């Protein structure tokens, strides 16, 4: 169907205007560009939305592939740890305490004689659950509140900004020590709740700022001038343009939330034994780092790789969500 490429001329002629005299600099330049593949190959697929285009970009990005593979792996082993670790993280044998790597126990044993490999694998569950759920909670709460404040402004904005300031003033670790030490439940939920409670203000502030910036753009006014409602303006024109910083900060924050869970567990107010968490293991192993460094290094390494993977994912997603970088 080669004549498809001559449509521009046809359109010009069809409009009953002197085709060539109407051609200005930019039209001529466009016409000279090599047309897209005649049989609809390459870029001619059905890329419709920002998201499908972003996905197409992401699939080609090695940083994204590596971090996504690590994250998929983490999610799989946190759902089904027995796939790669046959023993129980709570089955310990004090006679083997601090022993190094040996057949069947590649990471050796910790101070309590528990298998470090098994405990590291099972620890992923806590970290991934806390990281993912806390980030979802923070992102939803923070961006909804921030976006409404930024879009509608006025009293709603003033009240929210002051509330944000109050939460900003609470030191995270001190707040955790105070609030979580009174909770006896030994599940991940109090930790997630605490992180959401203290984590939403920065996201809300970013979302508010992004919405205010985007709201002032001419295309928002243009969309309004062409009859778009507030809901449509906010969801279709503002949110996609304002969401990138929220996603980036939230993905990077996910890593820090995992680290925060480890910190709180290390301090003894997050999860407590017999729960399994990298924070608990790091805490337990740190006094014996000279005699049994492996008991500290494996959970620390797993924590570092996990945090890094989420931060890399955040970067890749940010690049893909900005069409101007393409």
């Amino acid at each position, binding site marked *: 169907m080669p004549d498809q490429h001559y*449509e*521009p001329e046809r359109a010009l002629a069809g409009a009953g205007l002197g085709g060539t005299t109407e051609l200005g600099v930019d039209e001529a330049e466009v016409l000279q560009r090599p047309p897209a593949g005649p049989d609809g190959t390459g870029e*001619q697929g059905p890329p419709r939305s920002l998201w499908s285009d972003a996905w197409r970009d992401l699939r080609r990005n090695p940083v994204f592939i590596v971090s996504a593979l690590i994250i998929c792996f983490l999610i799989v082993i946190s759902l089904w740890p027995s796939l790669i670790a046959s023993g129980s993280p709570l089955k310990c044998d004090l006679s083997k305490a601090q022993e190094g790597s040996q057949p069947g126990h590649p990471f050796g044993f910790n101070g309590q004689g528990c298998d470090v490999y098994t405990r590291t694998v099972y620890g992923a569950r806590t970290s991934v659950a806390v990281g993912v759920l806390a980030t979802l909670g923070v992102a939803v709460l923070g961006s909804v509140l921030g976006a409404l404040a930024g879009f509608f402004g006025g009293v709603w904005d003033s009240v929210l900004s002051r509330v944000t300031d109050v939460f900003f003033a609470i030191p995270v670790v001190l707040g955790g020590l105070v609030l979580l030490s009174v909770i006896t439940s030994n599940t991940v939920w109090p930790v997630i709740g605490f992180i959401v409670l203290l984590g939403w203000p920065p996201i809300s502030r970013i979302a508010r700022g992004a919405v205010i910036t985007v709201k002032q753009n*001419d*295309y928002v006014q243009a969309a309004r001038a062409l009859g778009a409602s507030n809901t449509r303006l906010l969801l279709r*024109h503002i949110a996609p343009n304002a969401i990138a910083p929220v996603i980036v900060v939230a993905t990077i924050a996910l890593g820090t939330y995992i680290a925060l869970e480890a910190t709180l567990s290390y301090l003894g107010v997050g999860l407590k034994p017999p729960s399994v968490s990298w924070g608990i293991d790091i805490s337990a192993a740190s006094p014996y780092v000279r005699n049994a460094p492996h008991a500290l290094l494996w959970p620390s390494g797993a924590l570092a790789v996990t945090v890094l993977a989420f931060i890399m994912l955040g970067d890749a997603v940010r690049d893909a969500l900005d069409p*101007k970088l393409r």
Partner: protein
Amino acid sequence: MLLEVRDLHVEFRTRDGVARAVNGVSYQVDAGETLAILGESGSGKSVTAQAVMGILDMPPGRITGGEVIFQGRDLLKLKEAERRKVRGAGMAMIFQDALSSLNPVIPVGDQLGEMFVVHRGMSWRDARARAVELMDRVRIPAARERVRQYPHQFSGGMRQRIMIAMAIALEPALIIADEPTTALDVTVQAQVMDLLAELQREYRMGLVLITHDLGVVADVADRIAVMYAGRIVESAPVYDIYKAPAHPYTRGLLDSVPRLDQKGQELYAIKGLPPNLTRIPPGCAFHPRCPLARGLCRVDEPSLFEVSATRGSACHFWRECLDG
């Protein structure tokens, strides 16, 4: 009468006091007619347009008086939900900078198609087909391929064509174009203006053309309204104004256009600066800059005097001005 603006007043509350941006503007536009609104930056021409469209930022803006009668209804009395139905379908607006007026993360075809989905309840499939037709209509080459591209992948002229396509999508009765060619190359300006004029003739739309480009006005406008400090100071058919302006400000604008036969001479400029809108001079707002100003101008604010049946001038000494 398609659109009639009567005695419109708009003010802005600012830290420095109340800025009176629009002070009793009245104009009329008929179907198929082009009214050019001419004036410097800050003369209130864009604010008037925003008030007519209903996209004025309120606060800080406030409409303190007047009526905007469009197809027999006073838009200022409508509820926001009804007002929204008028925008896009009844009247549409074209903005100065098409790059910033198109959403950067949505392919242009979807932005065009959205008009049909929102206002006409069309399916996305049909709406996209209409988007391609529209892009063909504003003569964008290879519309079928380019419909999926993003705004930044188009040149300036092409983007403004897309804005025009969005504005005419629902065949509105009135288009307000706010300096549609200012951000474009001179060569592209003429093409875009021709396209706009052609579409206007075809659909018999009323066109309010806001500009400070006298060349553009001479080509396409039927009538001209000249604005100064939030008021219309002269209103006349385009030919009359170019032949002999009836207001010293209009004369000043015409005289400050560079002409080839004046090569080497100093270009005329209206002396002084436009007034601060929080402190508009008493009497005629133009008197501090006016070569014809006398005692009367300092105390008495001139109303729009009838120069002829189709022409008005807000100058006490319009006869003198008309005679040159």
